[in-house]
């Protein structure tokens, strides 16, 4: 079943006098629970389409449908609400909040997503997810004391703790060595399959493609078929 549709999306950036069309009509549909990998040369527009899909920037033209609702028609706050409760993000760097412990990062996300859980239940959720990403022994650590791989695992935990329907990942393994990368991808695959989360992921790395259900190749702002 299709849960997410990108329909004829274009994006034009204006640099001074010059208009640059970075996306030239992108069509992608994502099926529920599947992992779709976006590949393509650097500069082909992968990050741009991913962030448009994730509601972090607007398309110049075209539609982005999430569960049948057109996000391009929504106002900032409606999109924010969807981001908070239905979407999860993982980026190249982990973007953890520097003054929160691992545990607090996750509690904050539960709070922001307005998941209606009692304190005790939140605690249970946090413990469960930290076990899944194998970080339960570092729950009181601050980001500054974590290694790159550990940070990324916390970021993944944060991206899924509120049980989003969609996970958007932009080169989540780019900062990791190949062993760590495989671990992280295995983790993402396991978690999204267990929780039935639909994933759109940009990757550079050929090895990571084995974890995807579909592969979409982009070139110069277009999807290659």
């Amino acid at each position, binding site marked *: 079943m299709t849960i997410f549709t990108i329909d004829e999306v274009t994006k034009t950036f204006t640099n001074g006098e010059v208009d640059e069309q970075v996306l030239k009509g992108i069509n992608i549909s994502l099926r529920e629970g599947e992992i779709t990998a976006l590949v393509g040369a650097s500069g082909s527009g992968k990050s741009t389409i991913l*962030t448009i899909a994730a509601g*972090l*920037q607007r398309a110049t033209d075209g539609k982005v449908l999430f569960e049948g609702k057109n996000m391009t028609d929504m106002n900032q*706050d409606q999109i*924010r*609400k969807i*981001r*908070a*409760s239905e*979407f999860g*993000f993982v*980026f*190249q*760097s*982990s*973007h953890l*909040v*520097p*003054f*929160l412990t691992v545990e*607090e990062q996750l*509690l*904050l*996300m539960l*709070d*922001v*997503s307005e998941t209606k859980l009692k304190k005790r239940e939140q605690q249970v959720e946090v413990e469960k997810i930290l076990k899944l990403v194998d970080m339960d022994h570092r729950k009181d650590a*601050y980001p500054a004391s974590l290694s790159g791989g550990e940070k990324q695992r916390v970021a993944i935990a*944060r991206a899924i703790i509120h049980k989003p329907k969609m996970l958007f990942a932009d080169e989540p393994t780019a900062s990791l060595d190949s062993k760590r990368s495989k671990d992280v991808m295995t983790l993402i695959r396991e978690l999204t399959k267990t929780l039935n989360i639909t994933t759109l992921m940009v990757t550079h790395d050929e090895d990571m493609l084995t974890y995807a259900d579909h592969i979409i190749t982009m070139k110069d702002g277009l999807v290659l078929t």
Partner: protein
Amino acid sequence: MNIAWKEIKKNKAKFIILGSIIFLVSFLTFIISGLANGLSQDNAALIKDLPDGQFYMNVDANETYNLSRIDESVQTTVLNEQKDAAALSIQMGFVNDMEDKQHSIAFVTSTDSKSFESVGKGEVILDRSLEEEGIKVGDILTNNQFSGEFKVKGFVDQKKYSHAPVAFINMENYKEIYRVNEMQLIFVPGTEKAQVVTSLQSFSNKEFLNTIPSYSAEQMSLNMIIWFLVAISGMLFAIFFYMMNVQKIGLYGILKALGVKTSRLFGMMWYQMIFITVIALGLSVALSHGFALIAPKGMPFSLTLDTTVQLSIVFLIIGFIGATLSGLQIKKVEPLQAIQQGEV
């Protein structure tokens, strides 16, 4: 979850520095305003501590009480109509104590009234500060314009005029010293303006104070310093909060990307600003009142809780505006920017 508090806890040094700035600036402002008030008290406590009312002097006096001579018949009429009214005169002068040491004082004399001390002929009531200079009750004081002697009958607190202690003397003695028959002023307590006598010009207590040249000049400079300090601290606050916010742009972007409401980010900033400011101001109020206790005796320093609380409220408002203005950039933060900029 209270992220504002979590940040303060994790970044104590940063917030302590910010708090110390607010503390120092407000402390300085309180001390200066204590001095301003102290000086004003030293300069004119005699007038300042009177109940609200009206002063009258001759229209011809050009708003200078020394030049005012109120006609005796006018004085009688006004005093008859207004039963609490008093006619009075003030002149700067000297007295010599028993060791022939000269003391600069302000002679004040008045008709019988609740507002001023009444003294018998040959008697004098002095401001308490002269007691500290060694004069005692029963001492005999002299003045070279005066044929008789003054016997010190007692002391009163906080009666100063033009930075000199006041000496209340009997009207007969006053008339002899200064060779005048008329009084300079009439004071009528009460908020209502008494029926206008055409030859007299009326002044509220405050207006009257401002006719004393030394008083208005002194207060103007001190008030100017205070308001400059307030304005400068306002800018300081704004700049500090601005720098803090600029440092946190990345963080705000990430939080926004996660779906945190902009209003919550503002709430976070306000919480931190109010927390820091209230503690700093509290400390500063306490210490400035503490300073009043240990200030050297001769130092004119007078700080009321009213003043510090009012100034604190001004500081809070300024801090709030500064933080909010500098926080307007939170609204503009694009989550995407933060994500593309990498680690915060």
